[in-house]
């Protein structure tokens, strides 16, 4: 079937909130590789890595997501790798070079999931006091602008290696970003060349009006919490209206729903592990594949599955749900070459001076 109409599938490699707590000691890279390889074998579009500047509420360890993403990026060949970043608590300049570096590591499979650090437990870690929730959302939106401008501060062909003239760079193809906003002043240019995708996809979770505005202004892909396909349809309509009101340039937001899942060949065993959260699903892989058709029909581009148990439910997705979707002609059957942007159907943008 036409891949363009195929559903996109993402997986949250940290599992569902309130699911199994992470281990107290994070595993070395090789162990993480098994999970990433499982997701990759299942032909999933991308995996996300959660993050916060505070320990997980349920206990356990929390590695820094970009660093973990880089290790997974080096161990995989195909899947998109999307760590969470928090620009209110991190410098946008560092985040821009870090995600660009991840894009080089993965040869074009990086993205980032931006969050405004709204949790007060993190405040003491930022080295300064972030503002009100509203200001944090505004600052995050501004930071995404800066991060994108830094990615665009080198043209793709700025490195010329002109041996005749002894010039390594064409300096006319590298520009400061000269950003002066209410929250940030960043001159640039980046110290990292433009990443392979130009603009790695930016994801944002939409939970209310503030985060909806952030997604519309800054993201390529929105993650919704929706109770059911009807709710998803209503929320997608709100997003489209917000896009129109904001006069959003470029392609419309891709819209995914977040679905916590517990999967088992025996639906009663799955039900016993039913995760919390809107849209939660407990049942057989085949039943989830059937349910996904309804979510897709609600106008979604894809779903992000949040496994109640990564070690149990991720293989159930890759070995159960994916084959069932393939049998319905609703999912790819092989790895397609190309970048994460290309897989998501997003064109590669040219570097825009003064963006």
């Amino acid at each position, binding site marked *: 079937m036409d891949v363009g109409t195929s559903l996109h599938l993402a997986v949250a490699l940290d599992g569902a909130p309130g699911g199994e707590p992470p281990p107290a000691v994070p595993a*070395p890279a090789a162990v993480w*590789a098994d999970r990433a390889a499982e997701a990759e074998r299942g032909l999933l579009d991308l995996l996300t890595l959660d993050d916060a500047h505070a320990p997980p509420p349920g206990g356990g*360890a929390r590695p820094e997501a970009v660093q973990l993403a880089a290790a997974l990026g080096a161990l995989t060949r195909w899947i998109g790798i999307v760590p969470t970043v928090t620009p209110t608590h991190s410098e946008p300049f560092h985040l821009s070079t870090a995600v660009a570096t991840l894009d080089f590591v993965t040869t074009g499979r990086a993205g980032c999931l931006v969050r405004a650090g709204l949790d007060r437990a993190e405040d003491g870690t930022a080295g300064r006091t972030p503002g009100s929730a509203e200001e944090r959302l505004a600052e995050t939106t501004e930071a995404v602008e800066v991060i994108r401008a830094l990615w665009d501060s080198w043209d793709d062909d700025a490195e010329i290696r002109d041996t005749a003239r002894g010039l390594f760079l064409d300096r006319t193809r590298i520009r400061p970003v000269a950003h002066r906003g209410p929250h940030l002043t960043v001159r640039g240019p980046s110290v990292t060349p433009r990443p392979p995708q130009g603009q790695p996809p930016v994801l944002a979770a939409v939970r209310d009006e503030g985060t909806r505005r952030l997604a519309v202004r800054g993201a390529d892909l929105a993650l919704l919490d929706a109770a059911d396909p009807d709710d998803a349809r209503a929320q997608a309509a709100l997003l489209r209206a917000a896009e129109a009101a904001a006069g959003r340039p470029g392609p419309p937001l891709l819209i995914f729903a977040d679905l916590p899942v517990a999967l088992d060949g025996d639906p009663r065993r799955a039900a016993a592990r039913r995760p919390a959260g809107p849209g939660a699903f407990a049942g057989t892989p085949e039943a989830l594949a059937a349910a996904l058709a309804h979510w897709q029909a609600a106008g979604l581009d894809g779903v992000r599955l949040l496994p109640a148990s990564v070690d149990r439910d991720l293989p159930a997705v890759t070995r159960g749900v994916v084959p069932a979707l393939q049998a319905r002609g609703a999912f790819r059957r092989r790895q397609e070459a190309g970048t994460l942007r290309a897989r998501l159907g997003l064109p590669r943008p040219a570097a825009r001076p003064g963006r």
Partner: protein
Amino acid sequence: MPVPPPGARRQVLLAATFPHSVWVVWDDPRSGSQIDFASFRHAVRTAERGRFDFFLIAETLRLREHAGRLDDLEVAGRPHSPTVMSALAAVTRHIGLVPTMSSTYNEPYELARQIATLDHLSAGRAGWNIVTTADPEAGVNFRRGAHLAHADRYARAEEFVRAATALWAGGTTTPQRHRGTHIDLEGTFTLPPGPQGRPVLVQAGDSADGQAFAVRHADIVFSLHDRPAEGRRFRTAIRARARALGRDPDSLKVMPGAGFVLGDTAGDAAERSRDVALRQVTPVVALTRIGQLWGADLSGRDPDDPPPPPAGPPGSPAAAMYDRAVAEGLSIRELAIRSLLRHTFTGTPAEVAARIDENVRTGAADGYILAGHLNPVGFDEFTDRVVPHLQERGVLRTAYTEGATLRENLGLTTRRPGVAR
């Protein structure tokens, strides 16, 4: 291999740094990308094949500029240092991984998490090369904005390292609170202590403040003093200061940065060194670099002419360089080569191995942080040709100890005792 048995030859510590920027010969057919991950993977695997202790990459937070214009002559464009190291952790097994990160333009909670994550991912192979950032313009890219004065940079580094160390030690169970002039931190860390206790701390900075900071906190001083006599003086002084603070001087290793050029004979090596120097300091590079030091535009000049007198005051570095050029009859290009460039080790592989061994044996260094002049193949020749000689001499491991951490590989078997306050 971590602790040599009694009577064994003193082990040579070896690190490889990915050559960036100024002195990379980029017009060579073997010269590849300075940013593609494949280049980093090749360089780190070569160093691991050579049984090096660690791989280090530098950091700059601003593209090099002069008089408001980007420098277009040198290799530019580099990765986010810890992120590329975390990726390298996944494709290596034994070699230490040391990103360079500024204590001036990072926050301790975030930096400590990045390094601790690298330590867990690599099963105990992480280090941190602590720099304070000399470029006064770097601040324009960060919330802080303005730069900090030299003394404040080291005062911040001091508070920063104390806070980071406490976060690493406190793990996920002990909340931390630091209120200082420069660091204001409150929170519980998100990771338990890593496999090597504390990541290996490297310090790069040569002032009195920098050295004082190193003897308090560092496991390794990344020094500039690559010449044997100078190196011996520096290492003796650093060790004495460490001892005075109650530290075992052997817990502080001194590793100068060093370049190398090899040849099949001594004459061949000298010729290659000359050829590499001429390619590193092309006519346009010579005019630009000396012009920058002179504060003058020399672009119209003939690089083979003697330099004009600099405008600066007598006693300035430019004036001293000019005096040298006059005394030795040097052209602009020759002056640039002689004063800005140094191939520490030039010779046949056997000669270079012998000199490294001798320098370490006679206390000029504990080892070297080597930079080749080609990316990413700069260590191929060293690993293939010099390393076997070092191994034959019994001063470099022939195999890594399985499961050893970076700290153990460096012979720093114990966690450092508490910092003197």
